[in-house]
């Protein structure tokens, strides 16, 4: 088990995070114990950042103590790994619009203590304007307004020099057009407001998805 990226451990082809809450086995395939530490396997088939890391992403700007705004948290699966990485000194503001998902997200948050569940629409950042400035904005929302959502939220909440990560879903933006073209167009939109740092296609873990890391100028 080697720490290849701060907070992310690698063992062969598998990646892990160090459990913040021991014995917490939700959302993971397996828990591995080494000495006193416990590691949760982070499945690239179920989590886009994990897929991006396995596909060779170099910039992964979340570390211990980070403050993260997570848009589209769903039931909190990926959130739980971010929560491991940022630890008790960090915090994840998890925005989710669906009440059904929020029910599960709430349970995850209650168990972990560093996830702040917010039942709101990521298209309307003014509804959660009490959120403090953050180090990272991560967006995984299935909407044709993906890029606009990212721009609005990073304008409002991201610290200068802070990073943003987005999983562009080509099919949510336009099912018909060639994904390559959609990526290009979306990156151009994002590039006007944020600096493009790195991009990785998530195939075969997620079809027609591109993972992009950005930075606020």
């Amino acid at each position, binding site marked *: 088990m080697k720490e290849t990226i701060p907070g992310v451990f690698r063992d062969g082809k598998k990646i892990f995070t160090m459990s913040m809450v021991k014995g917490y086995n939700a959302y993971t395939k397996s828990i591995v114990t080494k000495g006193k530490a416990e590691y949760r396997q982070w499945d690239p088939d179920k989590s886009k950042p994990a897929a991006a890391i396995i596909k060779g992403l170099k910039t992964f700007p979340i570390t211990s103590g980070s403050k993260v705004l997570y848009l589209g948290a769903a039931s909190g699966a990926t959130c739980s790994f971010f929560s491991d990485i940022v630890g*008790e*000194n*960090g*915090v994840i503001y998890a925005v989710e619009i669906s*009440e059904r998902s*929020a*029910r599960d*997200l*709430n349970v995850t*948050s*209650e168990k*972990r*203590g*560093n*996830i*702040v*569940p*917010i*039942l709101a629409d990521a298209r309307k950042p003014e509804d959660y*304007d*009490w*959120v*403090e*400035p953050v180090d990272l904005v991560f967006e995984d929302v299935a909407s044709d307004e993906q890029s606009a959502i990212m721009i609005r939220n990073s304008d409002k909440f991201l610290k200068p020099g802070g990073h943003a990560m987005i999983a562009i879903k080509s099919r949510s933006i336009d*099912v*018909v057009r060639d994904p390559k073209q959609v990526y290009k167009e979306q990156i151009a939109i994002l590039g006007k407001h944020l600096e493009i740092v790195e991009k990785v296609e998530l195939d075969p873990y997620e079809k027609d998805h591109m993972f992009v890391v950005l930075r606020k100028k």
Partner: protein
Amino acid sequence: MKVFITTNMVGVFAFDEKMKMVHYSLFKPVPETIAEKLSEVKNGELIPEEEELIKELSRSGYRIIAWDKKIDFPGIKTLYEPDNPAKEKLTKEFRKLALDLHFVKDQMELNKLLSAVNVQLTKKELRKERKDVILMRAIAVIDELDKSLNTMSEMMREWYGLYFPEAERLIRDHEQLAKTIHKEGRREKVTDKKVQKYAKITAGMPFSEDELNAVQDYAKNIYNMFKLRDSLSLQLKHSSREIIPNLSAVAGPLIACRLIALAGGLDKLAKLPSSTMQLLGAEKALFRHLKSKEKPPKFGVIYAHPLIQNADKKIRGKVARILASKLTMAARADFYTGKDMSEKLLADIDAKLKPGKVKGS
């Protein structure tokens, strides 16, 4: 002197025009209490801490208050300024303040409290009554029962048909056949007049007692599922007449609920354009059309509506468009006013569909 008042999970704070904190009142660091206060504040209500703070400020000689509420106060001027600089300052500096004022002992504790407060707030939000969600669940069960009952009944037919093929052929209704097998079963006992005479001259094979019992057991369960399906849909009809009077009158309760389920809630359905309403449930055909040169679909789940079913094939598309436009109005009436205006909607549809008015192309 003007002062800005703003509230967050730590407490209520007053800043002067130079953004210096002049007064404050901390909440008790208990998640349930803070969540309660914050949701009151969000609803625009005045909480005791704010009232206290204002009295305090008034005694200190402040005469103008700017905040995000539209509440008047005797003896003091209040300005409605939701995006005031104090709010921004508090958002940015709440961690430092929370520690400086000994609200919590460290960042870790603050994070835990922040999480716990919002867990409570989300819970509160989830507890709110949503009648349309109940309808959505019920219609999902009914539609699934229909699908399963169909396959299960087909299998029952094949099975019992080995023993008494004439009964299987002559009793066309699944529910009726399930009842006959369950209550009568044995050929000689079947009371149906059309079938009776075949009991002795059947082309079916003999079944042992056990074999017959098995198929009867199976039929009994199917029969009970039919009864369950009926009682559920009756219940759905009653509740949808109350919850969505307009939609259920124009679309019929089942289609109305399917539309809500497809849109993901009455609120969302009410915001759809009628062209989308017309095609809800036909997404597959629609995207096939968009991707290739195939013809566009004319209707989604509203296809099952009697007006479309009874319309001439040539004008079905147009009928669907007229129906969808009135359904859109019905959904909006149900969501925004709750008033029953279904009579007018139905009369409008009648007028538009007068014989000869809609022409086929």
